[in-house]
Each structure stands twice: as C-alpha cells, then as structure tokens.
C-alpha cells in the first residue's frame, strides 16, 4: 500500500505546478491476481500491478485530460527528479490540450469550488486477508471446487480473483478523497454432458466468499438440468434468479437512470418523473454505503455519493447526476460520476432492489407452466428508449409445471422490455444475494423475482 500521505505528495505536486485555472488529479493504484481453471485443472494463473495518474487541467471552460502510468511501485517509491519530470510532462500535456480545446459552455467549475470542502463518510472496504492472499491459497480453493465437481463426474470451469487498490481524487479546490479497497470474485461454471450450472460470489473479503456453497449450487443446477426437454417459444411466467435480475439492473443504469439519457430523451424515464414506470412492488435505489456491498464514499470527480432512490413503488423518483451534468441541467450532483472526460453518463454501481416477502423456495408455488431462468448471456440493447434487450438464457433454464421443476430446458433466446417485465412482477423473494455487476464495476444486492409475459423468441439448436 502506498497510503494517503504518499499519494498526496503526488497530487499536491501536480496541483502546485499546474498552470491551469483549475486542476484535478486521479490516482489509481492496483494489484490483482486471478487463477483460472478449465477442464478440472488450472490453466491460466496471472498477476499484475499498475500505478496510473490522470490529470484534468481546465483553462477557463477549456478542458484537457492526460493520463500515464508511472514506473514505480511500493518497492521503489521516490518522488525523484525523473518522476517529477514525467509528472511535469503529463501536466503540461493536459494544459496544452486545454489551451487549444474549444470552450465548453456547459462547464462551470470543478467540484469543491462553490460547495466547499466535502466530508466523506467512512467506509470499510479493505480486507487484509484479501490483500495478502497467495497463489497457493487460491489454488487450494480451486482444488476444492474441482474435487467437488469430479466427485459427481462433472467438469469445473471458472476463476477466483483477488486484488487491492487505492483511488485518490484531488483537485485545486482542496478536494482530497482517498479510498483503499479490496475485492475478491468467484466465478464457477460446471459442465455436464447435457447441462450446465453457474454460481458467482463477490466480496471485499475473500474469506467471506462462500466457495463450497457456491460450488454446491452450480453442481446442483447441472445435475437438476441433466434431463432436458424443449418448449416452443412464446410468453411465459418466469422466475428470474439474482444473476438475471442483476443484469437487468445494470442495463437500467447503463441506459436509463443517467441524466444525459434522461435529458436527451433517450431514457425510458424521460418525461416520466413522478409517473408509474413499473409495478408498485418495485423500489430501486443506489447506496454506496451499504457495508454488505463494495462501498465507496465518493465518485470519480470527488463528489460524495448520495443514497438515491431511483424508482419508488413503481414511480420514477429521481435520476443520477455527475458534477458536470448537474451544472448543465442546474441541479445537484448525486455522486455518480465517472472519470473525466466522461462521454457516457452518470452511473450507479451499488444498486438495490427491494426484496419481497416470499421465501425463495416458495417462488415456484402455484406456477402451472413456467420457466426458471438462472442467468442471462450476451444481453444487448435492442431499443434504448423502450429499454428492450435481447439475450440467451444460460447455465440452468428449467421447465416448471404445477409448482415444481420437472426438467432442464435448452437455452432460449428472449427479447423483453425491462420496464414491462418489472411491471408484471408478482413475487419477490425475501432473501437477497450480492451479484457482481455485468459491467465489471460494482455489485448489486437483489432478490429473485417471479414475473409474467416474458417473451422467448427462439430455442437453441444442437
């Protein structure tokens, strides 16, 4: 770890030498390792470390951004003449870009100029166990998964990763935000002759990954799906398990919750604030302070993250703003900014879907004929404003008859509108599960759901 004081030496130096009217510095330090397994053995096993500095220099309303990685590590950290020279070159590069860039009339100032110094809530996002984990430890955990698969004559595939990092956002208005974090991620896919099963886990603390339980889940799915049947495409009542629900949530924030999409009339929420956009039993919010998740108290522009209720009892309640979009649309930022220059939108990375009251094991009760979907695959947007997506089911699609799973199903293609599907939800499980975001950033905490009118358009052949 470099720690806040060491990293502040760099940000202070940059802010000091910058000729811009305002200057922002981001520092990303990380060290990650990943053990990958296939066909019941480790086949790839890697580690890497990096140290990146990104500088945003403003000259009035003109912006320039430059980033570079630096050739030092904790083994070798000195702000010596060579490093200072590289920093100076980087800052000058951003300054030169800013000088010749046209003015952005929507830019007013960097965070902190008018708001004063931000106070950040303390969060515990760092686990020593995760930071210190060895390749031997990861191999031991993988060996357990493989043994469990082999014992059932199945093949295990997947990965176990661990990493730690430090993020700093600082600017010339006195903003200095420092966030040390760890993350561990487990991905298991079990393959049988006719069926597959998946389980994923994410946690900042590797010792809290329920590896054995995840392997059991993936194996159980594979065994349950062994006997396969087929249904004709059409509309079905479905149970969507947490990985599938998580993917819908990520798509909603990617295409629908951000201020840019909203104001450019590209979002399903555009012109609908205060109106019903999905069922009354749906409440969605973003809360980066939930210690069960991967907490982070500020966004990549140094703005404190706000707990934001986006959908409340089916009504569109609020949208997400980064600092720039908040200035442009004359409102307050919600702390959902990406690093500048952000050509996308404000983005939520700690989404919650309010659970219901149905025990997870009882979601099937009363379904005459339906489909249980464990997970989506290769989801793509078909119509942004309708928030229509297409994709395939994967790793456990099951036929439900009279409240029971009767067989596995071949993977099926679906095309659905997410708001429509969330308008038809009849049951939400009372249990929730933390799922990694499909975009690879953050995690979502959510229940499994039961909904109707889910359109399957095709069945996988061969």
């Amino acid at each position, binding site marked *: 770890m470099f720690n806040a004081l060491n990293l502040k030496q760099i940000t202070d130096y940059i802010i000091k030498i910058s000729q811009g009217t305002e200057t922002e510095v981001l520092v990303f330090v990380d060290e990650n390792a990943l053990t990958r397994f296939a066909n019941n053995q480790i086949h790839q096993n890697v580690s890497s470390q990096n140290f990146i500095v990104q500088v945003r220099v403003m000259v009035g309303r003109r912006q320039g951004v430059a980033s570079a990685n630096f050739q030092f590590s904790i083994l070798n950290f000195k702000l010596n003449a060579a490093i200072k020279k590289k920093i100076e070159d980087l800052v000058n590069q951003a300054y030169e870009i800013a000088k010749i860039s046209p003015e952005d009339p929507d830019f007013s100032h960097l965070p902190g100029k008018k708001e004063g110094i931000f106070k950040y809530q303390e969060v515990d996002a760092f686990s020593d166990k995760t930071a210190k984990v060895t390749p031997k430890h990861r191999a031991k955990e993988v060996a357990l998964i493989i043994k469990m698969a082999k014992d059932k004559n199945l093949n295990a595939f997947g990965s176990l990763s661990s990493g730690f990092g430090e993020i700093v956002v600082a600017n010339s208005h006195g903003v200095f935000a420092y966030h040390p974090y760890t993350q561990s991620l487990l991905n298991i896919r079990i393959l049988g002759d006719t069926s597959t099963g998946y389980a994923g886990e994410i946690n900042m603390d590797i010792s809290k990954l329920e590896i054995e339980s995840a392997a059991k889940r993936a194996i159980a799915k594979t065994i349950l799906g062994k006997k396969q049947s087929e249904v004709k495409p059409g509309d079905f009542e479905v149970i969507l398990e947490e990985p599938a629900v998580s993917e819908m949530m990520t798509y909603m924030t990617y295409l629908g919750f951000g201020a840019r999409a909203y104001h450019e009339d590209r979002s399903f929420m555009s012109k609908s604030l205060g109106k019903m956009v999905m069922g009354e039993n749906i409440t969605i919010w973003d809360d980066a302070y939930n210690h069960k998740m991967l907490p982070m108290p500020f966004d990549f522009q140094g703005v404190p993250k706000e707990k934001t209720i986006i959908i409340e009892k089916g009504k569109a309640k609020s949208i997400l703003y980064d600092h720039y979009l908040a200035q442009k649309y004359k409102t307050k930022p919600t702390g959902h900014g990406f690093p500048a220059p952000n050509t996308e939108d404000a983005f939520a990375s700690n989404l919650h879907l309010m659970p219901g009251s149905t025990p997870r094991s009882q979601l099937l009760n009363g379904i005459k004929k339906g489909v249980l979907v464990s997970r989506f695959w*290769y989801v793509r947007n078909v119509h942004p404003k309708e928030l229509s997506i297409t994709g395939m089911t994967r790793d456990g699609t099951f036929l439900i008859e009279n409240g029971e799973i009767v067989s596995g199903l071949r993977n099926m293609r679906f095309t659905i509108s997410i708001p429509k599907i969330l308008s038809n939800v009849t049951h939400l499980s009372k249990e929730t599960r933390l799922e990694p975001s499909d975009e690879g950033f953050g995690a979502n905490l959510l229940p499994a759901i039961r909904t109707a009118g889910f359109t399957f358009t095709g069945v996988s052949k061969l």
Partner: protein
Amino acid sequence: MKHVINTALDAISVSGLDYGDIRVVNRTTQNLSTRNTVVEAVESTSSLGFGIRVLYRGFWGFGASNDLSSQSIKETAKKALQIAKASASVGLKKVKLYPVKPVQAKYQTPLKIDPFTVSLNTKINTLLSCDKIMVKVKNVTTVQSFMRSWREEKIFASTEGAYIEQILTETGAGFDCLATDGKEAQNRSFPNSFRGQFKTCGYELLDELKLHEHAQQIAEEAVLLLKAKECPAGEFDIILDGNQLALQIHESCGHPTELDRVLGYEAAYAGTSFMNIDGLGKLKYGSDIVNLTADSITPGGLGTFGFDDEGVPAGKHYLVKNGIHVGYLTSRETLPVLINKVKNKKSKAQSNIDLTLTSAMRADGWSNIPLVRMVNVSLEPGIWKYDDLISDTKYGLLMSTNRSWSIDDRRINFQFGTEIAYEIKNGKKTGRIFKNPIYSGITPSFWNSCDAICNKESWTIWGTPNCGKGEPSQLAHTGHGASPARFRKVRVGR
C-alpha cells in the same frame, strides 16, 4: 530496454523452466470526441510496463508490472514462477508447446501520415464540421463525432532466442446522430456504429472516409426513421451491408474457430464453440461460395502485424474453404492438442485441414497474457457486382450498420439488429426504409443460405477495436473484410 529484457530472462532461468518470454509494451492513445458542436473529450494516455510468462515443469505462471526497475523485474519473475508452481498443484496435463523458429526481426505499420503529428486543431475541426452539419437537421437532438489515434511499441523476447520489435499504429474516426420526436428515438452512424471505422494506418484514413460529405445524408436518414414503418416480420431474402456482415463474421465465424474456446478454456466466461474438432474437415459451415480466412497480412486490418505475441510470423489461413470448416485460430499451446486429437481420428475428409500456427496469440497491453484471438477474419470477395446483386433480388431487405448483437455461448443462435433496412423490390431499391430491423438464425443454416457475395470492388476491411474475451477481461482489435452478400429466407423480426 535491453537491460529489462536481459534481467527478466536471467531471473526466470531456473532449473525446471521449460520456456519463458517477456513483452515490454508502451501504448499511447489519443481520443477525441465532440457532442452537439462542443468538444467533449480530448484525452491522451500512455501505459508502459512488462509481462513475464513462464512455463515451469509444464504449467503456466504470469506476472506483470509497471515498475521497470531491476528489483521489480526480479520480484515479478519470482512471482510468475511461484504462480506456476501453484498452477502445478492443481494440474493434470502438462503443456507442450508447438515448436517455432525463434527470430530476430522488426515490423512497423506502414503509414503515410503519422496521426500523432497531426495538430489537435485539425482533428477537432474535422469532427466539429460533422457535428455542425448534423445538428442543423430538424429533429436531430444529439450528434457525436469521434477520432482515435493508437500506437503500441513492443518488444518480445523469449528464452528460445526470439527478439522482435514492433510498432503498430491505428487510426479511427466516425460519427453518429440521434433523432427524436418525443415518442420515438432513432440513430444513424457513419461509416460504422460504435465510433466508426478503424484501421492500421495513419491519418490518411480521414481522406478515405470523407466524413463531412456523409453527415447530411446520415442525419436525414435518422429523421426519416422516426416516421418509417417497423421492419416487417417474416422470412425474407436479406442483403447484409459490409459493415454489418463484418460483425456477423466476427461473432459467428471468428469466435467459434478460436481453438481455446473449442478446448473449453473459455467455457466459464466467453463460452465454447459448436465448431468442434469432430467436424473439422467435414462440417458444412456454409454454401460452396463461402470462403473465410484468418490473416494477419491484409493492409489496413486491425489484425495486421509482423508477429503475434508468441513470436509467430504473420500469415494467411483458411478457416472455411468452399463452405467446409477446415481450420482454427491456434496457439503454440493449443495446436499440439488439436494435432493429437486429429491424429487419432484420421479420415479422408481431414486431408484438406490446416494444422498450422495462425499467428493468433495476442495480448491486451503489457499486463495480460496472450490469448487465442482473431486476427483479420474475413469473407473472401465473390463474383457479383453490387448493382447486379440488387437487380437480381425480387424482394429483399438491405440491412446496414449494426445496432445490436447477441449470440449464444456456443456461437450458433444469433440475433442482430441494424440501424436501417432499405426495401428492394423487383431488382430496385424502392426508396422505402424500415426502422428497428432485426434478423436471427442458426449459424450454419444462415451461412448455407448465402447465395451471392459481391466482388472485390465492394470489399472493405472493417475494424472492431473492442472485442472482449478472457479473465481478467481483455480487449482485442480485430479486422473483418467483407463485401455485401445475400442470404435467402432469413427470419426477420423479433
């Protein structure tokens, strides 16, 4: 960089080492984008570091670092060896590498105008001129223009004696626009969606693209789509424009012929493949006119280079020849496995298959291991003139510019959406357009329905700079040559 290379090779030269290599990579990029006549991003990035890959007693380890000091190189080498030992503890089969003649060589992307020497003002004005044309069109609410310059300088050295220096340069540019009328939102892009066209070349690409000459027409099409009818559903003959066909090739031929996927290495993430080894030399992948190649030599392709990241020289190979699946994208690790499996199943049909290295091992920067990736996976041009193909089509839909793509994890069940479909009736484009076109199918059935491919005059090598694969996730830059082609009786609509 000699000291970095030598320190690394010395540090991994331990008893039990089968093979080792080091790659030192320095990547620089410049990204520009404008939105509604305002410059949204001017960003310059650079990343320098090294990755050490070791094969120790038959098992892999890899370590990478940004810190090029001797101490860090030694520590990283030590870590790579420790990781390989951990791999061995859960290993079954030892890796055997296909032999490669180690070479000392240099390669550089040929270019006329170095994109990093063109002034920012020139680049920004090029983009703003497109924005200004599009934003004037009524009902066009958001316009964006993009440009990217990319360069990778890399050195590859191995314990076998290879030492290869390469400088690869890419240029890309394009624009898109969104039209809305309060109810409907439709977008159009040029020359391709997802930020345009990308090639290994210099700034001369901009002369070729002539962006601003197309801005007015593209913006007007976006507006016309607002009032256009929904694309009809049913079975239709469709002609895929080259830019859409490029992605079709990428998803339904490029990925399933990656040999690591076929062997299950990607099963937990990117998926597997329906093009299994039993079908090599036998699978009727497409109609007789379908010839798909993997090459790393076509000028301008994003998969064009001198050597891959294992030191294998660039070349050209058939994946599908006269409609038959004949080859895979291979690596030094996977090719011996393939040869071994094929050897045990010798048959007449397999006499035409390609069992060679295809220079397809590519890593995303210095911090990742090389994986089997696409190079330029292309559809060879056919014999049809474009106008003749239109004239020969009684009723059909010409679909252009990808909007959405989705395919199952074995790469067989796909659905693509395009930005626009043009109606063809009695051999002529009627002038009618349809919104939200979608087509779907099963990969071999679809390619077997291909009955006409346009000739070299209409053939373009398209760039895909964002192909994801692997854990940790890596992005590769791949090329796909294609000319418009016709497919019979394809399912259109949701």
